[in-house]
């Protein structure tokens, strides 16, 4: 598992890319990805293209990001979910909190 983050040129958007398993082992790395940025972005993208698996602690981590990004005002998109990942997000009804594509 590897997590990288890349701010957009204008610094308004932060893209976090997650490779491999997204589970409790990713906890610190995922937090670092959005906490260690020079300026707070307006919007977040979590790119799950390379994510093979996602468990309930990953859902918890997404909620932490949402909290960090302003709670109900957070703008977070989850992109490139494979069918397994999408299923887990659907069971938890996370589309009520995140834009999922």
């Amino acid at each position: 598992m590897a997590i990288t983050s890349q701010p957009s040129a204008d610094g308004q958007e932060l893209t976090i890319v997650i490779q491999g398993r997204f589970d409790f082992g990713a906890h610190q790395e995922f937090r670092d990805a959005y906490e260690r940025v020079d300026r707070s972005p307006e919007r977040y993208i979590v790119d799950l293209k390379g994510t093979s698996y996602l468990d309930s602690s990953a859902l918890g981590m997404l909620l932490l990001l949402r909290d960090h990004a302003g709670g109900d005002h957070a703008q977070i998109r989850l992109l490139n979910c494979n069918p397994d990942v999408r299923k887990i997000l659907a069971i938890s009804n996370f589309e009520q909190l995140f834009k999922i594509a």
Partner: protein
Amino acid sequence: MPARLTVLIAEDNAADRMLLSTIVSRQGHRTLTASNGLEAVALFEQERPQLVLMDALMPLMDGFEAARRIKQMAGEELVPIIFLTSLTEGEALVRCLEAGGDDFLAKPYNRVILEAKINAMDRLRRLQDTVLQQRDLIAKHNEHLLSEQRVAKAVFDKVAHSGCLDSPSIRYLQSPYAVFNGDLLLAAFKPSGGMHVLLGDFTGHGLPAAIGAMPVAEVFYGMTAKGHSLTEILREINAKLKRILPVGVFCCATLLNISFQRRLVEVWNGGLPDGYLQRAGTSTRTPLVSRHLPLGVLTPAAFNDQCEFYPLELGDRIFLLSDGVLEACNSQGELFGEARLLEVFANNHEPAQLFVEIQQALTRFRGELHDDVSLVEISLLDEGIPSRPPLVFADSGQNSPLDWSATFEFRGETLRRFNPLPFLLQLLLEVQGLRPQAGVLFTVFAELYSNALEHGVLGLDSALKCDAKGFAEYYRQRSERLANLEEGYVRFHLQIVPEPNGGRLILRIEDSGQGFDGPAILRQQLGIDSLCGRGLALVRQLSERCTWPADGKGVSVEFSWSRGHN
């Protein structure tokens, strides 16, 4: 600089012994000397040196035997033995190592190499020491953790007890320590009969997961016992978890409200995999799908307590499962998955065996059953409705109020959110004579109240419930009309009258609706075993007297008791 060691030198040649002793002493270590194996073993036992230089060939007992004995005495501690040998052929050197030697040093002795080897062996010795210490520490911590878990589990069991999980209508599979996996299974009888069931799965493992389970169990049992509705319990649990849990920790859960008498199940699923309602005598299954965010995520204002309602028939079975079932993993790293589970359902011939077949399929799939699986089956059996144990009251009931009356009117705005039944029943159960009939009172109140609310105030037509589709439509309309309710009322007139040998409760309930033709409805309900309502027939069976005024606006029921009956 390495620590000062005690080094045992076993060498039968006096000159060599002297030379070695001098080199080792100069390096800053204390030396002990022996001239044969026997002496070496005796000295080792007496002085417990940390390192041994051992000549291979000595009189009385050779170095090989002495090394074996010393290693045995040293036990888990690493006491490095460096063989001193003029032997050169490979086989002899192998014998040194096999006897327990850690290294060897060829004669004639080279001071620099000897010192370096002693230092290297000392490093190994200390490494082994650290490993042993850490191993013991981990073992101690682990033992500590387990004993803490035992205590925590004992406390948890007092709070969460087993509820009515031992009821014949419930079968379940769960590790006794499941709470430390974050799994929680609760079941309790409602005062009106029927049952509430909760299967929950907290994010995370260990104590953090178990801590959240405590308040859930308390709210669940406390509110169920007081007659609160499923939606009220849901709201309370969600609000409590939202307040106490850190962001990112939540509880996926399915809650069921099963009314055995009304043949009805109310379902709320937030974040658990599909449960299944398996219909008796057919192979049709209704999935009980997650429609909500898990508990503890949304604020009370944003929380959605919308439930789904399904009619039940004798022999129907409800299955709930945690994601541990679907995520059970075999040795190839494959997941059990929904497809395999559905295959078990599809291949089933004897519904009573389904539960066991799911268990067997899991065991076959991954070899053994792990402790992170929770599975529960609730069935509507025909050998009678499960019975609730009598309520327990803390007070003696000596100051029982015996002559009073009260009228309550609950209006639109209140009816939308508030369930008046727990409040009214709490009041009535102050009357000691009514306590033995508490269960029946709850049932009758619940029936009359839902009649008044649904047909009277909301104007719903129970004829809708004649088939499964209409049934769902009925409950859709119910929640829609309730959400928009502004007018209307339900009135309760309670009257407690003393009688020579006891007393009597007279309850009249009225609503703002059009009124109804009680006797006609009763004829219809007694006539056919249909999906639409058994409510009124049930009330008449359970109460001592049940009457309607001529205009059909309201129902009056009576319950009496005699002294000494308690």
